[in-house]
């Protein structure tokens, strides 16, 4: 005989009782974990909040765990307790100096008043949906007040803080708190702004290259001139000791160089009066 059949036959009543008890307990109990906060809604009215987010309470003491509810009368609505992401669509922003910038931003938010959130938006997705256009316009407005250059640099932090504060005010309506707003990317839009940036970069480099070359030539020229000056000084220092002798000495070198070259076909006509031939005449 089958064990299960025996069991069933003998313990029918007990098994049914246990099963019913389990189902009843399951419908009375709901597990709310650390990632969620729960609003218990009794007959459509928010009754109480379980595991509500409080920044100073450690995990484990927040009230997460089993939540009792009255079956059929109470519903447990789960609301995310974690920091959620609100991603903005990529959009063009016009800076105060009429330059376009393509901006990708994100905000992080958390539901801090789940009851209000359940009443106003229902789900966290809806909250994000509602906040998104507000973020977009806040961003466009705030960045539109600033110049392109300041958007890129330090001013950005201040702008973000302003946007965060503005968005936070709106978000409180939905029981949410904006923790942070940040520009993820700020790019030049495709097309002419990007192209002209490329052109500017290229021309700047061309200018740099030309300057470098000219600088090189200038330095080379100075080096040459300095060397010439040094050489001239060396010559002058040496030769100035006896200019007459230098004249003679240099003339001798010069004749050597000019007339005694290999293959020179110079003809020299000498007069017997020539100094060189003085001894020739036997005088």
């Amino acid at each position, binding site marked *: 005989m089958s064990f299960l059949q025996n069991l069933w036959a003998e313990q029918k009543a007990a098994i049914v009782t246990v099963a019913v008890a389990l189902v009843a307990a399951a419908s009375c109990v709901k597990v709310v974990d*650390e990632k969620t906060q729960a609003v218990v809604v009794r007959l459509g009215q928010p009754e109480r909040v379980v595991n509500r987010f409080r920044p100073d309470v450690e995990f484990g003491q927040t009230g997460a765990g089993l939540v009792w509810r009255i079956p059929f009368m109470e519903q447990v609505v789960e609301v995310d307790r974690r920091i959620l992401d609100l991603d903005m669509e990529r959009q063009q922003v016009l800076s105060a100096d009429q330059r376009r910038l393509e901006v990708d931003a994100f905000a992080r938010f958390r539901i801090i008043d789940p009851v209000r959130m359940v009443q106003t938006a229902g789900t966290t997705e809806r909250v994000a949906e509602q906040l998104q256009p507000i973020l977009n316009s806040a961003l466009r407005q705030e960045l539109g007040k600033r110049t392109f250059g300041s958007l890129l640099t330090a001013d950005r932090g201040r702008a973000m803080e302003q946007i965060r504060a503005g968005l936070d005010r709106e978000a409180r309506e939905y029981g949410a708190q904006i923790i942070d707003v940040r520009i993820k990317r700020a790019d030049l839009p495709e097309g002419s702004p990007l192209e002209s940036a490329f052109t500017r970069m290229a021309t700047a480099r061309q200018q740099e290259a030309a300057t470098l070359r000219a600088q090189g030539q200038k*330095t*080379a020229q100075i*080096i040459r001139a300095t060397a010439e000056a040094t050489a001239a000084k060396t010559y002058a220092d040496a030769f100035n000791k006896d200019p007459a002798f230098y004249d*003679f000495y240099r003339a001798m070198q010069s004749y050597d160089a000019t007339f005694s070259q290999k293959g020179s076909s110079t003809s020299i006509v000498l007069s017997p009066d020539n*100094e060189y031939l003085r001894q020739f005449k036997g005088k």
Partner: protein
Amino acid sequence: MTGKKSPWGSGGGDTPPKSDGGKPQGDGPTEPAPPAEGPRNPWLPPQAADAPQKRGPNIEDIFRARKGGGGGGGGGKGPTMPRLPQRPDGKSWAPVGIALVIAIWLGTSMVHRIAPQEKGVVTTFGAYSRTLDNGMAVTLPWPIQSVSVQDVTSIRRESIPEGDGEKLMLTGDQNLVDLTYLVRWNIKDLKQYMFQLAEPDQTVREVAEAAMRQSIAEVTLNDAMGSGRQQIEQNVRDRMQKVLDAYRSGVSIQGVDIKKTDPPTKVVDAFKDVLAAQQDAQSDINQAQAWAQQLTARAGGEATAFDKVYEQYKLAPEVTRRRMYYETMERVLSKTDKVILETNNVQSYLPLPEMKRTQVTKPAEGGN
């Protein structure tokens, strides 16, 4: 295939029927086949003897067989309850099966092995209870407590951007730079990592992007491409850590490494030209320096030579002078054609045009 002996032929009723479920069903109950010669499948009803033979039972057959009272016996009592085959001693497998399932359930949900690089978070009905360090750990079984294990010490790497594409960022001087980098991070607080952020990994990436772009926007193009790299890496790391700590994300940024910083492809030629210009300038300077060296060396040489000769000349000016004169004339005149003429008569007898130019004798006189 169909004519072969049924695999159940000698196996008796011990083997669970479902273990051979897949293939025989493919033959289909309606497919005609030659009658079997070997022992019949004990799972099939007796009246199926005349029906087309099949290789094995399928689930329908098992239920049908039970209704018909054939097969393993005891059929007809539990109308739909599936039964396991019996043990050899005639008892049911069911208690053994149940015990086994319970043992597996307790074993897998109570005993946890945490590897050295891992940590585990124990939750009791969803609420955080404790963090398990490495080693063996015992918890309450599943519906009550559950354990989530994560690798905490090994460094995760996020390469940004993911592909090989160009990633242009604006620098402070409104230039563009193509920059790719790597973020290394790990989990420093597992419970925060698990419970604080909805999408921790994505958050790390986004925060990295924001921090990197902000840091790049603070430096010039030349700094970004050259000397400022280390500073930027440090900057981004600090910024990210600050933001992630503010989120209480439990994430620790180990480091940010800039993999490459290049000029955008469209202007890369202009950047290369700058390098070429640097080389050109340097080579100009080198050439000039070489020339200058030569020139000053020659001057030095000539001056020294003059000095040496002059030293000797001073000792005996007249003799040295004459000696030099004659030696030079010797060298000069020995290599040239020479004509000696009385000047007054000769003038008209010189027809050669080059002869007219050879008033070379005059310098010789000048040497006097």
